[in-house]
Structure formats: C-alpha cells, structure tokens
C-alpha cells in the first residue's frame, strides 16, 4: 500500500483530494502553518494518515456526500493548541483514530458537524499523558440533520503527576429525530498525584433519539495486578501489559505497519 500526497493549493492552504490510483493519502503537514483545509471528492472512500501538524492552527476536513473517510493520526510533538474540525454531509462516514503522544501541555478543541441526513462520526482518541503534562480534549459532535449517528471513544492513561481531561459533548438539535449519540470515556490513573477527569455531556433537544454515555476514571485494579503478578510477572510488567491493553486498540485504525510499530514502541518505551 502506497500513500499519495494530494494536490495542494498554496494560495488557499487547501489540499484537494481526488480519485487516483490509490485511496490512501498522506497528509504530512511538516512545513505548513495556519488553517489547512482538506477538500474531498464525493462518492469515493479515502484513508488518510495525518502527521507532523505541530505548527498548524487548525485542520479542517470537508467531507462531501456519500464518502467513507478514515483518518489515522499520530500526534508525537509539542503542541499547546490543537484544533480539528470536520463538516460531514449526507450519507457519509467520518472515522478517526487519534493517537495522542503529544509531549507538552495541550488544549484540544475538536468539532464535528453532522450536517447531512445519515451522516456518521466514529471518533477514537487514545491519550498518554505524563510528566506533569496537562491535557484537555474537548470533543464536540453536533447532530444538525436527521438520522445522524455518532460514537465517541476517548481512552487515556495518566501518570507522573499529570492531568488529563476529556470533555465530550454530543448535541442533537431540535427536530433531528432518529439521531443517535453515544459516548464512552475511560481514564486510567497510575499514581495518586495524577488526575483524570471525564465530563460526558449530552445536549438533547429532540424526543425521538437514542443517547448514552459512560465514563470510568480509576486507578489500576489491584485484583488485576494480583492476578498478573501471581503468575510471575513483576508489578511493573503487569502495569505495562495493562497500559498496553488500554492504548493499543487505537492501532487498528492505522493501515501502515511502520506507524503501528511506532505507536507500540511509544506505549512500551514510555512505560
């Protein structure tokens, strides 16, 4: 599988993603600044690898009708302010896998607008927050059309006197019946000087909808540690295995072996 760099319009700071020999695209934003727009052709499926956007103010996806867009992103850089936005049109699916290994404090602001009937967003974020870092991710999904669907999964591990906040908002506007908004947030807190906060919010202004949220914040289960150590693993090994199990599922969104490997190394190396 080879990734193609889409056409880039310098004046508009915009990538134009059209049908080509591969559906796999690389968005390496190394030299880019400002707001970057990714405009996608309708009717096709695309898979993006989004990397090196530490100097970019905002990354915006314009998802037209009838497309399946998959975005996998490794964030391994310093970044104080992160802004990701997307507009999703009718009968399209916007699926994301963000692997957060950002090495600084970070305020993440993510907004997905489901603007067309039947639009879907599947949001996945896995965050490793450590070494006094303070990260806050606000993930907002707005259901602005009928029969829209969202599923938000935020997973985090916080350790070494760090702080991690997941604020998830699912909003279903009045009249947007048949819509479904689901949220799931889990934070594992490694030590007592670290802090994890999950704030799931559902704003529902319509009766005929389905909505749910689940939030779990806790330390590693002592019974789990006992179980693993009773088989001969040291406590550190047990914790590493549990952490690994917590963050590893994010790699299923990555098609590229080298990035799967890098994420595994980041999880393992950092423990």
């Amino acid at each position: 599988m080879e990734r193609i760099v889409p056409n880039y319009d310098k004046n508009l700071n915009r990538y134009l993603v059209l049908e080509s020999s591969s559906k796999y695209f690389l968005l390496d934003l190394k030299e880019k600044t400002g707001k970057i727009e990714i405009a996608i052709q309708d009717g096709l499926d695309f898979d993006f690898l989004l990397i090196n956007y530490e100097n970019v103010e905002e990354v915006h996806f314009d998802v037209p009708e009838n497309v399946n867009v998959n975005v996998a992103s490794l964030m391994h850089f310093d970044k104080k302010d992160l802004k990701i936005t997307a507009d999703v049109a009718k009968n399209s699916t916007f699926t994301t896998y963000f692997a957060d290994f950002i090495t600084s404090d970070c305020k993440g602001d993510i907004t997905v607008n489901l603007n067309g009937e039947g639009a879907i967003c599947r949001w996945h974020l896995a965050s490793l927050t450590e070494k006094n870092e303070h990260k806050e991710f606000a993930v907002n999904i707005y259901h602005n059309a009928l029969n829209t669907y969202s599923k938000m999964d935020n997973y985090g591990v916080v350790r070494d006197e760090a702080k991690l906040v997941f604020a998830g908002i699912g909003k279903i506007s009045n009249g947007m019946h048949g819509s479904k908004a689901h949220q799931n947030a889990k934070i594992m807190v490694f030590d007592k000087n670290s802090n994890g906060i999950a704030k799931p919010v559902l704003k529902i202004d319509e009766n005929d909808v389905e909505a749910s949220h689940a939030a779990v914040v806790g330390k590693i289960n002592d019974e789990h540690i006992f179980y693993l150590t009773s088989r001969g693993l040291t406590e550190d090994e047990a914790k590493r295995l549990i952490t690994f199990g917590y963050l590893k599922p994010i790699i299923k969104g990555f098609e590229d072996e080298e990035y799967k490997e890098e994420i595994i190394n980041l999880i393992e190396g950092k423990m």
Partner: protein
Amino acid sequence: MSKLVIKNLHAEVEGKEILKGIDLVINEGETVAVLGPNGHGKSTLLNVIMGHPKYIVTEGSIFLDDENLLEMTTDERARKGLFLGMQNPSEIPGVINSDFLRAAVNSRNEKPVSTYKFYKSLDGATKELKMPFDLATRSLNEGFSGGEKKRNEILQLLLLNPKIAMLDEIDSGLDVDAIQVVADTIKKLQATGMGFMVISHYARLFDLIQPTRAVVIVNGKVAIDGDPKYIKRIDQTGYEFIKTELGIEITKDENNMNTVSIGTCGVKEAIK
C-alpha cells in the same frame, strides 16, 4: 522435595481476623483436600500464601523450603514455584491471553522462550484441555464463560509447571465432561510430583484426583489434618460431627449468611 511450612498464621482483612493460627505442612507430591464451612478461611489461606495485598498477616510464618514467603512479593512467590488457580479469575480487557501467558512463562526463564516453541506448547496445552485455540488470542478472560475461565486457569498451571499448585474451587462452573478434563490434567501433574492444595465443595473432583490428605479449616484454624476419608464423610453428613466429636463450636458469621451460596466465596460475601 519442596515443602511449604505454615506456622501459627494469623491474617485479617479490613480489620477482621479470618485466620486465627493455622499450622500446616504441605509437601511436594502430596494432594491435600482443603475443606471447611463457608467463611472460615479456606480461600483466605490460599490468598495469603500467594500474597494478596488485601490480607494482612498479623502473626506467624510461611516458609517454602528455607525461604520466608512473607518477605517476598507475589511475583517472587510465583517464581519460587507457587501457583494459585483462582475462584474468580480477573477479566482484563485489552491484555491478550497469549501475550500474558508468554510473559508469565518468560518470567521464569533467563532467556525468553522462542515464539515457535511457545506457540507449540500453547497449542499442545489447549488441545489437551479441549479448549478452542482462539481463547488464547482473545482478551484475558474477558467474555469467557465460567467454564472457559477455569480451563484458562488450568492452561496456565500446565504452562507454568509450579512446585505446589493451589486450586480454589477450580471445579465450580464446570460441567461433568470439563471436570473430567481438568481432573485428567491434575492427575498427569500429580504423577510428575507436583503438590496440590485443592478447595472444592464437591466430592466429584476429589473422587477423580484422589487426595492423599484432608485438611478441614474451622474458625480460622486447622480442625482436622489427616485421612482423606473425611472427604466422603463431610460430603455425606456435613460438618456437624466436628462439634459432636471434636467439641469445636462452628462459629456462625454474625453477618447475614443468606448472601452466601454455592459458587460464591464465603469470605468475600461476609466482609461486604
């Protein structure tokens, strides 16, 4: 020959004393049936030997050969040759069973076992236990049925090959065929000289594995340490004779015992 020696062991959980002076010796090669009414300390004893952090030893000693287990962490005790097959094995999401098993096997080896060798022994062990191989590739115990969890415990026992294996109600949740499979594995390991301490409420498993001794724990102490014929007697007549013949009053838990039923751990219910 390894020997586990427990002297005057007292242990408490959340301020409540459960073990009140246990004296017991287990030799490698023996199979000891551990019996006793619910809530009197059977599971606690096994957990204390393994080093569960919830239980606090207030007095006494546990030695494996010349080594003081109470000074060791749980993983050190495991590497010395102890194994605890749990009553309620933890479900650990995301941790792949085979990754965990391999890490456990490697914790005992100086050099990591080769991938090929490991999968070969895993394949052999799952076949022996009539387990679907895909259980090894799933998250550890997550979504496993009660019987699958227990077989997974025996799978670990096979792969880790301890000196003394403690099995806490390993037969609960198993159907008749599965009990036979588990018993066959235990018998095979008995023949290699492995020692066993086995808690069960049912005579069926004991009929199959033929313990060499029976130990009855009442009121946090060893009331009987002797002939395996007690297994049959307790199965048929209960624990009443301990009072009438030995003069030991069986303490009823002051908490509501109605919450305790077959298949739940008496101690865990009692301390709720």
